[in-house]
């Protein structure tokens, strides 16, 4: 069964993360890299995302697309990245989410499986 883990963070912390000097950021990545090493065999996709300031949103007003600056999720939180994982059940996906080291929330969502051929 496949799930997507959405890695969240507060906007405040995401800004701090970006402002970090290179060396410090590398050190901060160490636990995240360890997580990927530990669960690598279950991670079947995903990416870290560029910060929210790079986001562009297309909104539809009366069916007409309107391009705007910024993310569509409002509020204090933001999505920093996502991973697609292949595991037996929700408990295994939750185990991975609980081990996520950044301190930010992790949303676990099953993906809809339409029986497409595995790529």
């Amino acid at each position, binding site marked *: *069964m496949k799930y997507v883990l959405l890695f969240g963070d507060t906007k405040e912390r995401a800004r701090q993360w970006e402002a970090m000097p290179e060396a410090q950021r590398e050190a901060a990545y160490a636990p995240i890299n360890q997580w990927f090493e530990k669960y690598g065999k279950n991670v079947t996709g995903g990416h870290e995302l560029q910060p929210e300031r790079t986001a562009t949103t297309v909104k539809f007003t009366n069916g007409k697309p309107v391009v705007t600056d910024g993310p569509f999720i409002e509020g204090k939180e933001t999505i920093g990245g996502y991973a697609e994982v292949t595991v*037996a*059940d*929700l*408990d295994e996906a*939750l185990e991975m989410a609980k081990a996520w080291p950044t301190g930010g929330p992790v949303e*676990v969502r*099953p993906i809809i499986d339409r029986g497409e051929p595995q790529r």
Partner: protein
Amino acid sequence: MTAALVRILGDFDLAEELVQEALLEAIQHWPKEGIPEKPGAWLLTTARRKAVDQLRRQARFRNKLAQLEGELMRDDTAEGDDRLRLIFTCCHPALSREAQVALTLRAVAGLTTIEIARAFITSEATIAQRIVRAKRKIVDANIPYRVPAERDMAERLNEVLAVLYLMFNEGYLATAGEQASRRDVAEDAAWLAGLMVRLMPDEPEALGLLALMRLHLARARARFDDAGNLILLQDQDRDRWDRERITSAIVLLQRAATMHRSGPYQLQAAIAACHSEARIWAETDWRQIVALYDALLEQMPSPVVELNRAIARRYRDGAGAALADVERLTEALDTYYLFHATRAELLRDLGRELEARAALRRALELTANPAERALLQKRLS
């Protein structure tokens, strides 16, 4: 098979009816799921389970019920494992607390959606929808149907006990006055806690929770007067307490203590046991109770526990000391009616009548429970 049931139920018609029902269930299940390995045993187990459900509706059969359930567990561990899997799935932390409660009452305790709706004073549609949504999440998110792995067990067992305790408290409060027609969910919660104890006999906190519930239930009859007014512990007629039930609950607690793994439910049960053992209010062992609250605070720091400790201190160290403790909780408990009700009592003890009345009025604003409101009104007048 009917004979085996008659022996326990002592009622031939009922036994026959249950066997018929079990056969009906077989007709529904077997074509879909295949004929079980031992069809006879399957039928008997199903009929027995139905007998348990029947008996649970009639509290006076409590002894027979224990016998029947004992047999269910003893000669069919597969049945026990199945129930345990079901409980852990219904109480999976990925479900909301209210969904856990409704689903457990429906799937494990066998209540109908109407009974659950009445117990929680809500509509049947709300409960039905809650259950449907929970079942859909179990399927869609692939919540596993199994007993958790060893490393998750402590956390998951806590979750189950928390669900049962919430269920108990809501049921216990909902009985406030009137409504004899309403099913007593507190009894169902205690039954479920008993089931957990039978299925996991080496878990002291499950024993602690069961003891705690039974100690409350043993004193339930004395909680209201004939007019449905709430009677405080200190004013209760202790002859109306069920001494037998208290003694058996304390035995459970002692059994838990031999396992040497203390926990919040055992400590709360020990506090309830202290109250239950005092033959009169004046004999209450407040020293012991304050010490138990100290231990509880260490394991489960919470402003509500601190408030309860302060109430116990009132009787050990006087109203002045208790009020000083209570005042420190103002920020955390300002919207909790018992905080203001307690403060009012202490202020009154100290002769600060005007402040006491203001605190009582604030308490009144914060509770909708009719029995609690009546009590506060009385103090105000």
